[in-house]
């Protein structure tokens, strides 16, 4: 099976520098973002090229799997750009360690998926994180930023879960997708704590109406025909299982943020 290599990556060495710039030079956005992006991209061939070539026979993937991976890549592009643009702008120093770690992972997920897809990878869409004016202060108001971060992470968890079955024929790619999926779960939990919420989703409870679609269906407590509420209570039973979303439902959630 797969164990993670703990060889330090280029991004590790970037963190202290990035942190320093975020704290001391907040506002100098473009320089930071470009530096982060450039170094992230530069690290890809070193970190991923060999891994990807060995693990996946690139170029021989069936179209159905390519479609799933490009769907995942769309979400990762969105998350990576969201944090790359927003973290230097709006995150207070106390939360930088958390947000830089999330940003690092999302940038890595983009690079990994692009590496797996090779020439089949879609280009990065153009995003509008104000969602056509619905969130005009997304990169100026930290609470708005956190609402969107929570929405993106909890959606990401549900999106990967919904695609697992479509990858069941390819063990390497299924396992890789699961390894991304649980990282999105860690991200979602920590972002929720920054909004003073619990790390898990209780029924379909959500304090921001704009995110209602992200939580629709999370109240389910019947698993494989078993009513799990009888083992504790409805709240705990709904929290204990995260529910999937279809590709269509995820794309509907993401659509307001995608210009082209």
């Amino acid at each position: 099976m797969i164990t993670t290599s703990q060889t330090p990556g280029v991004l590790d060495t970037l963190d202290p520098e990035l942190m320093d710039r975020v704290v001391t030079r907040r506002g100098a956005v473009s320089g930071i973002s470009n530096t982060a992006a450039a170094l992230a991209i530069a690290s890809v061939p070193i970190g991923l090229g060999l891994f990807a070539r060995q693990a996946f026979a690139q170029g021989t993937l069936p179209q159905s799997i390519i479609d799933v991976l490009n769907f995942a890549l769309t979400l990762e592009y969105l998350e990576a750009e969201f944090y790359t643009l927003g973290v230097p702008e709006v995150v207070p120093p106390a939360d930088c360690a958390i947000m830089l770690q999330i940003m690092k992972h999302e940038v890595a997920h983009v690079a990994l998926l692009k590496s797996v897809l090779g020439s089949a990878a879609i280009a990065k869409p153009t995003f509008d994180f104000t969602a056509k004016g619905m969130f005009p202060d997304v990169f100026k108001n930290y609470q708005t930023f956190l609402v969107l971060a929570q929405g993106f992470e909890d959606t990401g968890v549900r999106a990967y879960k919904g695609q697992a079955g479509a990858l069941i024929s390819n063990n390497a790619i299924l396992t890789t997708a699961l390894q991304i999926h649980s990282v999105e779960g860690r991200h979602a939990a920590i972002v929720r704590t920054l909004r003073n919420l619990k790390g898990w989703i209780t029924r379909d409870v959500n304090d921001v109406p704009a995110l209602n679609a992200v939580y629709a269906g999370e109240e389910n407590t019947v698993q494989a025909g078993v009513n799990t509420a009888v083992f504790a209570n409805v709240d705990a039973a709904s929290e204990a299982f995260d529910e999937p979303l279809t590709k269509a439902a995820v794309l509907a959630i993401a659509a307001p943020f995608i210009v082209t």
Partner: protein
Amino acid sequence: MQWAGVSFAVVLTACGESTTAPIAPTTPSGDLSLGTGDNGVLNYAYALEQLEAAYYTQVVATPYTGISALELTLLTDIKLHEVVHRDFLKAALGAAAIGALEVDFTSVDFTSRASVLGTAKVFEDLGVAAYNGAGQLFTDANLLLIAGKIVSVEARHAAIIRNLLNPKSADFAGDDVVNPTTGLDRAFTPAMVLTAADPFVKTEIDFSTLPTN
């Protein structure tokens, strides 16, 4: 845990001479064989959830010194989640479910926050790696989805426990569990997971019949 031993039986040959011959490996009394196929993988998950549920039941029954109200609330939530996972898997397995696991938490100081949360961190990270590695062992996509519904909750637990231990740091998804270059969480084989869980489990678990891919 130990491997189920190979037994030998005295066999009488046709001419009355006796000889010894190996018979099929047996599972000694008290051992749990996880079984085969998808049910075997579910039993593997059931064993881990039994371990986690038993652990948090003890944690909540005897809260550590100086526990905060928030910490007790979170740990109680986690306990209920693990109980739901355990009882669901038992119900889903029906007659195929393994018996009760005998746990051993003598290495844990339940009065100590560091010991309790440190052990919780081990269990949650291990649970994540176990489910991530087990996904490919399923043949039924519906069961794969169920496992997926559970693993992200274990990941949420892991992040919250880690944040209690080291608040506001990168540890919620630290470089020790999420590869900083690939952004991938860990994925372990059953052998790796059960070896890591071994200090906490008295029951001998035979996982040799589980699918391997």
